[in-house]
């Protein structure tokens, strides 16, 4: 019972922190933290599936989140018919050709016996295939990117409701995870970690440079929204009347309403995934996963197909990260490939899972909220601390300026300290798993 009380207390604490932000700073900030906290919680649930359930060391979270973000663009934005007419066929044909080359190469590799002939055949297929692919693909890409590059210059999306992007983001990430898992899960320990890190960087490099796909570093903004626009609310007499009756200013009220709308949608997703994860953890499947995590050899001896189970959980966890990524682009209303940085999207999620409690779904959710809160609030807090520290110094002194300016970098330092303290004194996290 006391454990129950402690855990509830921890969640209450986080709620108090966020509500406190509302009272002390502004409700807008509080809701911003809440929304990103909900998304972070989904991401850490995804990573917890992989690390907490199965002991898979995935440092490629960023890649899956970015793929989910891409889904927001591919589903939500309207198509660009001129671009499709100009080079759509070329791009699609190029991609199909590229995939065909890889399939043919794989088939030939498996059919032919070892020896110099196989190496030669592989070289011919891959090098020749690469140039053929580039010939078809580049022409298409050039045509697409030439279509009004300032405004579009890409193929656009499907123009469907943006909420559909969430499951699509999950599917996209799951597909990538399947491909990666098939090749990389055979690797041992640290080799797997670095491989996933590298794959995330490759995904990001593609998103940054393939302008026909999502405009690359030119970014896509103005994604459609699942919630009404603030301006529309402010122009709606019914809404203005309602909030005025509550004694609120319509401008503030409209922005709060929009954020609450997002929070509601995200909360539904979080509860859904949390419930599923909880059911999975307590099912025979969950027990099997934990058995594999704790002793792979023994599990294998019991007849469990470890590689298959690893692949399965790797795909599931990545899909959850993809869903979170799609939710995030929906919230931001834009897709900025350069914003995906491992310090934020991979390593911070790891801090969330470790601090919250790996292997425990509620722990992962708690960690998501708590660490996100700190990530946002450490900066103003650092500034405040610095102001106190530097108060006795002379105004305009170089050291004072430097210290005040550096307060912004307290964030990483604090995250590192928190991670190390938790690992040292409570290695199983705030809400330990079983």
């Amino acid at each position: 019972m006391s454990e129950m009380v402690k855990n509830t207390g921890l969640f209450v604490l986080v709620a108090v922190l966020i509500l406190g932000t509302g009272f002390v700073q502004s409700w807008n900030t509080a809701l911003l933290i809440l929304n990103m906290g909900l998304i972070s919680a989904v991401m850490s649930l995804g990573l917890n599936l992989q690390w907490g359930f199965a002991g898979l060391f995935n440092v490629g979270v960023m890649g899956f989140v970015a793929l989910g973000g891409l889904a927001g663009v591919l589903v939500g934005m309207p198509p660009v018919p001129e671009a499709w007419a100009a080079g759509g066929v070329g791009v699609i044909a190029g991609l199909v050709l590229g995939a065909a080359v890889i399939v043919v190469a794989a088939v030939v590799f498996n059919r032919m016996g070892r020896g110099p002939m196989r190496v030669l055949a592989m070289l011919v297929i891959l090098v020749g295939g690469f140039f053929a692919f580039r010939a078809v693909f580049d022409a298409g890409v050039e045509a697409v990117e030439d279509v009004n590059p300032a405004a579009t210059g890409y193929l656009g999306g499907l123009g469907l409701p943006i909420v559909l992007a969430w499951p699509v983001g999950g599917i996209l990430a799951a597909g990538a995870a399947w491909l990666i898992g098939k090749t990389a899960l055979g690797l041992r320990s640290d080799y797997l970690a670095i491989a996933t890190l590298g794959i995330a960087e490759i995904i990001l490099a593609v998103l940054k440079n393939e302008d026909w796909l999502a405009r690359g570093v030119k970014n896509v903004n103005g994604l459609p929204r699942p919630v009404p626009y603030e301006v529309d609310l402010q122009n709606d007499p019914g809404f203005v009347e309602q909030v005025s009756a509550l004694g609120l200013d319509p401008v503030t009220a409209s922005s709060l309403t929009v954020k609450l709308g997002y929070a509601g949608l995200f909360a539904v997703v979080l509860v859904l995934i949390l419930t599923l994860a909880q059911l999975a953890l307590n099912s025979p499947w969950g027990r099997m996963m934990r058995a594999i995590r704790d002793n792979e050899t023994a599990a294998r001896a019991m007849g469990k197909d470890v590689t298959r189970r690893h692949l399965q959980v790797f795909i599931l966890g990545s899909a959850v990260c993809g869903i979170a990524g799609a939710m995030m682009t929906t919230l931001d209303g834009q897709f900025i490939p350069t914003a995906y940085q491992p310090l934020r999207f991979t390593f911070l999620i790891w801090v969330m899972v470790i601090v919250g409690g790996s292997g425990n779904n509620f722990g992962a959710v708690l960690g998501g909220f708590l660490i996100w809160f700190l990530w946002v609030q450490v900066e103003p807090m650092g500034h405040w601390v610095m102001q106190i520290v530097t108060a006795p110094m002379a105004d305009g002194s170089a050291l004072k300026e430097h210290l005040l300016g550096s307060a912004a970098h307290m964030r990483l330092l604090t995250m590192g300290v928190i991670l190390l303290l938790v690992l040292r004194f409570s290695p199983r996290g705030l809400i330990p798993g079983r």
Partner: protein
Amino acid sequence: MDFLNAIVALSNFVLVPAVTYGSQLALGALGVTLIYGILRFSNFAHGDTMAFGTMVTILVTWGLQAAGVGFGPLPTALLALPFGIVACMALVLVTDRMVYRFYREQKAKPVIFVIVSIGVMFIMNGLVRFIIGPGDQRFADGERFIISARDFKELTGLREGLALKTTQGITVVTAVIVVALLFWFLNRTRTGKSMRAYSDNEDLALLSGINPDRVVMVTWLIVAALATVAGTLYGLDKSFKPFTYFQLLLPVFAAAIVGGLGSPLGAIAGGYVIAFSEVMITYAWKKVLTYLTPEALEPDGLVQLLSTNYKFAVSFVILLIVLLFRPTGLFRGKAV
């Protein structure tokens, strides 16, 4: 003549940059590989260790420059390097004492060490940004070129110029000296031999009376020196920016892994493999090919396999390909 021009163009744009970058990567990868061999974990904080050592070097360089101390045609940073190394050694020893030792005594799983090193990475990254700021810092001085493209053209009468920057020369010379010292140390001295023994078989080494604390300490000292040298050379050659050093972690790891974790020779080979593939795959071969082919066959495109923006991704593609066929790297590294 055209053939000579082609060779010069190739050296100028491919060979020299790749050898320089490869040497920097190799020094970084040697640090990663030593930690993996002796302490048995992948140190994610290595990029930021490099950044810290370099940062101290830069600060001392600025101090020396302000005091009017120079190194003639060579960059002042070389004079400041020992200070950077000592500071970096102090940092890693303090880190080991305060953080890693606890887990060593607990005999924690390697993966825990990796996660711990992520925490250390956050702290070091924050520390560097806190002290020197996140911006770009330039600290190279002295002569810029050993030989500039124009001088080379005048000297040889060729159409293509070959520019050799001072920093490129220093990088290669320093790398050769450092690597030679390291291998002499590992193969010839008592401590070096005990380190190798410890790396090969921990239990056996302990049985034969090797002091593990000493081995670990010496390893950290060497790694700090390697990291600072690699970081300073990279900073001199390109520029210093904390975030770049964090990103450097990735190609450095790629180099160490392609060579096989735990194998010093592999780390060096890996460094050059990664550097050469990055440069060669993203280089526009048009110039070289134009010299080599008859006019009718001259290529009209840039003949670039991938755009330069993919430089970073190339190291991982190479890494993945190597791992697919050799799961523990070219020189058959270890797996814990």
